[in-house]
């Protein structure tokens, strides 16, 4: 009992430090990512979504070709994991975009999830996302389980593999759904920079 307690408290400390680092230090934003946002259809979305094993924020930009190229894979991941207790939201991390443009773009690229305009970069900065596309996975209590790339298809700007050899977002979600720790909680995404 004693042992358990001390171990648990140690874990809590580590977790606290990690959470602080990911959500706090990166951009000086509040620690918690328990918040509500309004999507482009006017609905209030709670983050993280209650009753889900995980909530995934997918940060994109409508004029970023790397982010656009990932649209089909994003939709496949949504289809594969939505039925396993994972909730997805797509956030446009760009200041000069609007509801009409987002609706049109989301339809063209086949996103069938709630769409958020992150015009002031509140979410992307809080999540520590620096480029598009980049994803952040929230645990039910709002702490960060994974932040980084969807997969490693892009090696650098203008250089991509024929096929990705690491599918980090899928690996993270597989782990979360199975109740295991995420193998690599952060990775470096290649894409278009989100203004700081």
């Amino acid at each position, binding site marked *: 009992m004693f042992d358990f307690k001390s171990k648990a408290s140690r874990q809590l400390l580590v977790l606290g430090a990690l959470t602080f680092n990911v959500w706090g230090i990166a951009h000086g934003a509040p620690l918690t990512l328990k918040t509500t946002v309004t999507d482009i259809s006017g609905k209030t979305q709670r983050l993280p979504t209650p009753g889900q094993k995980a909530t995934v924020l997918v940060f994109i930009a409508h004029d*970023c070709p790397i982010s656009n190229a990932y649209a*089909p*894979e994003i939709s496949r991941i949504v289809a594969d994991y939505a039925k396993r207790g994972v909730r997805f939201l797509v956030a446009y991390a760009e200041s*000069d975009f609007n509801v009409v443009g987002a609706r049109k773009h989301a339809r063209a*690229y086949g996103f069938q999830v709630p769409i958020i305009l992150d015009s002031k970069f509140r979410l992307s900065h809080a999540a520590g996302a620096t480029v598009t596309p980049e994803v952040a996975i929230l645990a039910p209590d709002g702490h960060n389980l994974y932040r980084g790339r969807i997969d490693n298809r892009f090696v650098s700007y*203008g250089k991509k593999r024929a096929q990705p050899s690491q599918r980090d977002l899928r690996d993270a979600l597989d782990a979360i759904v199975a109740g295991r720790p995420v193998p690599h909680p952060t990775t470096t995404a290649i894409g278009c920079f989100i203004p700081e």
Partner: protein
Amino acid sequence: MKFPSIFRWPLALALTSGVAVSCAGLLNQSQPGGFTAIGLPAKGGSVAPKAAPAAKVVTFNKDIAPIIYSNCSSCHRAGEVAPFPLLSYDDAKKRAKQIAIVTESHVMPPWKADEGKEKFADAHQLSMDEIAKIRQWTDAGAPEGAKADLPPAPKFAQGWQNGEPDAIFQATEAYNLAAEGDDVYRCYVIPTNYTEDRYVSAMEVRPGNHAVVHHVIAYLDTSGKAREKDAADPGPGYTSFGGIGVTPAGSLGGWAPGLVPRLADAGEGILLPKGADIVLQVHYHKSGKPETDLTKIGVYFAKGPVDKRIRSMMVINPLIRIPAGDANYTTTATRKVRDDITVLSITPHMHLLGKDMQISAALPDGSEKKLVHVNDWDFNWQMIYGLKQPMKLPAGTQVNLTARYDNSTDNPLNPTTPPRTVTWGEQTTDEMCIAFLFYTVDSEHLTKGEVAETMPGGGGGGILGGLSPGLRQMAMKLFDKDGDGKLNEEERQTALAWWRDHGAAIPATPPQ
């Protein structure tokens, strides 16, 4: 100074030689940023930043705009290939960090040779000083600066860069492209229906959909075989990676992002044979959503008499055999120049494993001239290196090529996992080793009826053109069935098929 014409770096005429190689991203026309084509100085000459005081603040208006205007804006503007504009302070501020990173890593502007503006027309290569300035500006928070410092915005011609073409060609209907998957090479067969030979001064490509069109080559077919392939494939055109699947009769040139076409010098032109079909091969990247494209080309005919044909030759090694795991496979090719020629441009060509190609000329007097050294090969940027000063090469000059490839697992671009032995072929998983040289023959005067003799293999040296004498002799033994010392079309096809079937394996002993 006279600016080199567009066909100082034309393309794929080389394919007249008959090797259905292709995929040669032989891009015609100028490199990005041909401001010169439309009357602006190529180098942001309108602004000359003054000597910097010690604690100078780098601003957009004073320091960065001239760099961006003369190196980026020709592609980064509405209606052109780049995904976002770079025409204003707001445009640049929004991307400041990205601009600093891609210029430092030399990803942008896309220029892969070790020499730049001093040697090649329209080279878009930033100086170390310019790159450092962008970094300083970004780190300082991307300040705008004084309005008075801002140079006039560059002006670009809309639409056709050389005015309304003499003829416009396009496929009969738009092509539908899926949202994702492998790249597509689609060939549209467009009859010209001309009843006489014509000379082309320039060809300009207007991609129908910039989100997906990666590069375009206009081949010529006089055999009618491309039409047959078109008829056999549903939808507009037919699909063929690399080459067009038939032996082309030539090429009018090509286009890649940023290339701006210019008219050939007076008296020079590319032959468009009568009755030829244009086979417009469009290389598509997929964008993430379904797309359609209807790309068109404009052709400008030579306005006066043509005295010299713009020809091409290949320095080629079809016997490459790159062992699995070899991170630094090095191979060579060589080719002797038969006449006094003037080289206008050079186009190196490899696929995904290529990492370096150097082409130089050993002159009969023992001196050596460097043509081009691409030390950062990138399959996506198949440049045509147009010489600002065309290079004279006397008869007897040996053109030498050295190429290096990385077929290891450490090469993330290696399309095959685990690596396998890679030989010559047209697939992305195969490799090639070619340098195309575009040139005129000094002694040729078409206006006086003095026609230069076409080099063996129809100007390309044929598929044996780049072989060493020993290998050439062996290859001749294998394929010159009628023993006349040349490969006729049937023998050539046999040789090519053999190379395709056997890769570039060099047999220890010739087959019985």
